[in-house]
């Protein structure tokens, strides 16, 4: 790069940064333009977490050469974290999968084959499984990182083509409890409000989320709000571990893991006792519900009051331990209720729990009792882990019990409607929901699943108690197809590996935490023979229809035949999904066409039934008349809020009577520690991507175990010592980080490392929430011991 060009680029960098903070630098636009000459900017979404940051990818000679945040984007206001800034390194990375690979047996080496051969093999194996073992012997396991078009198309083919609801995805492991919480509390999935509440709130209640590392750009907004209004904004952080999120908190509640249900019930008790609740909101919109044996029963306020009175601050403080006192419970309850606006934010700390749905209900309860929803600065906001868990999987029909547009599978009317919209015979989609993730991989273990398609995810690393489930995936009578960009622990167990196009190498939509769908168009060509998943699914289906001699299978991809894969194909899939399947549903996205999204800095929040409405960004706050068009079109009375969500026919919000419940596995004499797991800022999930970015790998080359100094002193563990952590299921050996992070009696390990000695999901337990079926990754009983002093370690990434 020449000196002059470098100077121009530096000025460009300064101007871009300055524009985000309202600063006018004495540098002209023409200079910026010259610095950027010869570049084309393609606007899309970051690939590496659920925040949905928008960025422009600079392209020169067909290669990605620059990135910048999009200042006008309502998701990130222009900011991007370091992980997001470095994701371009995965485009054209030398480790990318570029050719279809096949082997008949899983202990054989892979052979490169052509796409024709690969698609024929996949069609033949799935057809064979169906013919010999029935429709439910096949399954699709997808991802909250697949684009909506991909999830939608695959689930259509499996449900209407192969006639099985064995359609699942990794959001079962992270978001299912939030879905369960929203649906049972508000009658509708996904948050009511938007990120924009961050700049309007006076109280943040951050529970079970280390957002500073897992959602860094949202954390930046929270921090900015606090810094700009230090006296008027209170940050409450509730977490058994001191995390980087805790450092901006005014109050950090640190407690014994698994006791927060008691804490939230005690907060509700204080709110009732001290009459801090919003009587009018509660009487206008809420009912109280108690789960009986088979069904939920409505009870009155007095019954709720009596139930909750058991949870005195004194009792909760005794259950919670740590620094929780009755006074601090009263203080946070008052702040929560009396703040002009309170925003709760949570993530896996509540979701990955044996009672994850209950935990979600209890946060939602606090908002319902205090009327802290449906107004600026107030919301119960579940943070999404993956970039398209909401848009693709929750909305697009990517779980075994839901069809596109939030339609339950077992609902005859909803199912028949979908069959009609797809033009397939009535009764084609089976009425029984498929197997949820943990049941699906148990069925793989038992040899009941004969062919499984795993797309864009690595269950051979991400499932809890993973060694147990890898046994099934290793079976030679289970045909396993993987579509992915890099080798993973799961491609290691596959028969057929199909190379896919990466983000910005194909076109598609991601829907982030705040109900916003955002388009990422193709900017560069994929490497080698890698192909977009929508192309792969279409071509496979054509062959599958021939193998099974079933014209209905071909009918599933009829509208997409022959379309060019870079734009026309995904656009046709998106159009069918939005124009037909979301029409009149609460996630109505008919206004969010590719044409509309292409012209926007960010994207569209549903409901957005028309293009004109979508162009302005869609619905910022659901259920509010004058803001949400469906609150007007679906209104049944004159009240300002209309809770038309599909799950509550009575249009009420439910305050649930949920008792405190601990973990499925509590520490005991043999396994006296609580093991918890989580994320670190530099890595993403199974690190098959971030582990290949040298800057990120250098920052955190391998997992370590965080040990509280008191526990470390007791067990003779020094910083850097190798420590064995063992549970009923398996063990890891990791270097120790001794610091005041986890509360005494708790250890913490981040879960990204794929080295067999440091893969913590071998140790985590697989018990799951009976409602959401989400496993309790966050709490396992374990024991630890010092194995040796520090030893040199090597980072590890799977290669072919």
């Amino acid at each position, binding site marked *: 790069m020449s000196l002059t060009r470098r100077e121009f680029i530096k000025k460009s960098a300064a101007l871009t940064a300055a524009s985000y903070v309202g600063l006018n630098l004495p540098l002209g636009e023409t200079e910026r333009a010259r610095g950027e000459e010869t570049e084309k900017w393609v606007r899309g979404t970051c690939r590496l977490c659920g925040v949905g940051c928008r960025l422009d990818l600079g392209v020169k000679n067909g290669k990605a050469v620059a990135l910048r945040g999009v200042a006008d984007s309502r998701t990130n206001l222009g900011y991007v974290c370091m992980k997001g800034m*470095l994701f371009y390194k995965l485009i054209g990375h030398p480790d990318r999968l570029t050719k279809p690979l096949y082997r008949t047996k899983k202990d054989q080496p892979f052979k490169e084959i052509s796409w024709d051969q690969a698609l024929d093999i996949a069609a033949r194996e799935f057809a064979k499984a169906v013919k010999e073992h029935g429709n439910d012997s096949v399954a699709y396991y997808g991802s909250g990182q697949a684009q909506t078009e991909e999830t939608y198309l695959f689930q259509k083919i499996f449900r209407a083509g192969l006639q099985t609801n064995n359609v699942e995805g990794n959001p079962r492991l992270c978001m299912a409890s939030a879905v369960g919480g929203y649906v049972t509390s508000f009658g509708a999935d996904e948050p009511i409000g938007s990120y924009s509440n961050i700049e309007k709130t006076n109280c943040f209640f951050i529970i079970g989320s280390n957002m500073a590392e897992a959602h860094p750009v949202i954390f930046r907004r929270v921090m900015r709000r606090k810094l700009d209004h230090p006296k008027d904004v209170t940050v409450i952080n509730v977490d058994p571990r001191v995390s980087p999120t805790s450092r901006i908190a005014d109050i950090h509640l640190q407690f014994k893991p698994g006791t927060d249900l008691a804490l939230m019930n005690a907060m509700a008790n204080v709110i009732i006792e001290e009459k801090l609740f919003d009587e009018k909101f509660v009487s206008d919109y809420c009912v109280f519900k108690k789960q009986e044996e088979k069904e939920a029963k409505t009870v009155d306020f007095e019954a709720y009051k009596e139930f909750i009175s058991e949870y005195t601050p004194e009792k909760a403080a005794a259950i919670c331990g740590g620094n929780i006192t009755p006074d601090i419970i009263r203080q946070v309850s008052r702040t929560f209720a009396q703040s002009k606006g309170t925003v709760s934010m949570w993530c896996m700390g509540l979701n990955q729990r044996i009672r994850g749905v209950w935990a979600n209900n209890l946060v939602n309860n606090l908002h319902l009792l205090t009327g802290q929803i449906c107004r600026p600065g107030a919301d119960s906001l579940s943070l999404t882990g993956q970039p398209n868990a909401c848009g693709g999987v929750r909305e697009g029909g990517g779980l075994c019990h839901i069809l596109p547009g939030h339609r339950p599978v077992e609902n005859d009317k909803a199912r028949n409607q979908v069959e009609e919209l797809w033009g397939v015979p009535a009764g084609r989609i089976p009425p029984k929901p498929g197997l949820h993730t943990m049941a699906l991989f148990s069925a793989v273990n038992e040899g009941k699943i004969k062919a499984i398609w795993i797309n864009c995810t690595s269950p051979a690393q991400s499932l809890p108690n993973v060694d147990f489930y890898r046994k099934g995936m290793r079976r030679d009578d289970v045909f396993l197809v993987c579509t992915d960009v890099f080798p993973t622990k799961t491609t290691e167990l596959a028969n057929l590996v199909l190379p896919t196009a990466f983000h910005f190498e194909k076109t598609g939509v991601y829907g982030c935490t705040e109900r916003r769908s955002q388009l990422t168009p193709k900017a560069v060509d994929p490497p080698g023979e890698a192909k977009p998943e929508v192309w792969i699914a279409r071509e496979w289906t054509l062959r599958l229809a021939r193998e099974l001699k079933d014209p209905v299978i071909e009918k599933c991809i009829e509208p997409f035949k022959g379309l060019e894969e870079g734009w026309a194909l995904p656009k046709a899939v998106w159009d069918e999904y939005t124009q037909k399947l979301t029409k009149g549903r609460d996630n109505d996205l008919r206004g969010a066409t590719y044409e509309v999204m292409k012209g926007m800095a960010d994207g569209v929040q549903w409901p957005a039934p028309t293009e004109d409405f979508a162009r302005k960004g869609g619905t910022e706050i659901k259920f509010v008349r004058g803001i949400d068009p469906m609150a007007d079109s679906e209104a049944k009375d004159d009240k300002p809020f209309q809770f038309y969500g599909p799950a509550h026919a009575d249009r009420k919000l439910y305050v649930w009577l949920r008792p405190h419940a601990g973990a499925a596995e509590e520490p005991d004499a043999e396994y006296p520690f609580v093991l918890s797991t989580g994320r670190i800022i530099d890595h993403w999930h199974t690190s098959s991507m971030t582990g290949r970015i040298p800057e990120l790998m250098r920052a955190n080359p391998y997992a370590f175990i965080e040990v509280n100094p008191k526990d470390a002193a007791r067990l003779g563990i020094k910083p850097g010592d190798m420590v064995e952590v063992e549970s009923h299921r398996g063990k890891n050996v990791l270097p120790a980080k001794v610091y005041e992070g986890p509360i005494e009696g708790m250890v913490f390990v981040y879960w990204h490392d794929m080295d067999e000695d440091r893969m913590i999901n071998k140790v985590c337990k697989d018990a799951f929430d009976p409602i959401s079926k989400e496993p309790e990754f966050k709490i396992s009983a374990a024991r630890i011991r010092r194995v040796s002093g520090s030893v040199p370690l090597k980072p590890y990434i799977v290669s072919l």
Partner: protein
Amino acid sequence: MPIGGLVVSCGKGWEDRVMPKILELPGVEVHGSNGKGDLVVVVEAETSNLLETVVEAISRVDGVLTVGMTYLNFEDESNPKRPAILP
């Protein structure tokens, strides 16, 4: 040579203490401040690896609360050929 544009946020009134420390780091220029604790910073480094080291060092400077990336040009590195695993 990768070039990054950053907004470095410190508390209001901390700019004078933070700025000299940041300027000691290699390849760092401060282009201005908005008076609310946000500094406009440009970093230039030999490789994106080194750039990340400098950004990391900025984030550790006493008084710095967050470092927000807004721009990155990496055209000299757009053909990645390095090994995946660092020694």
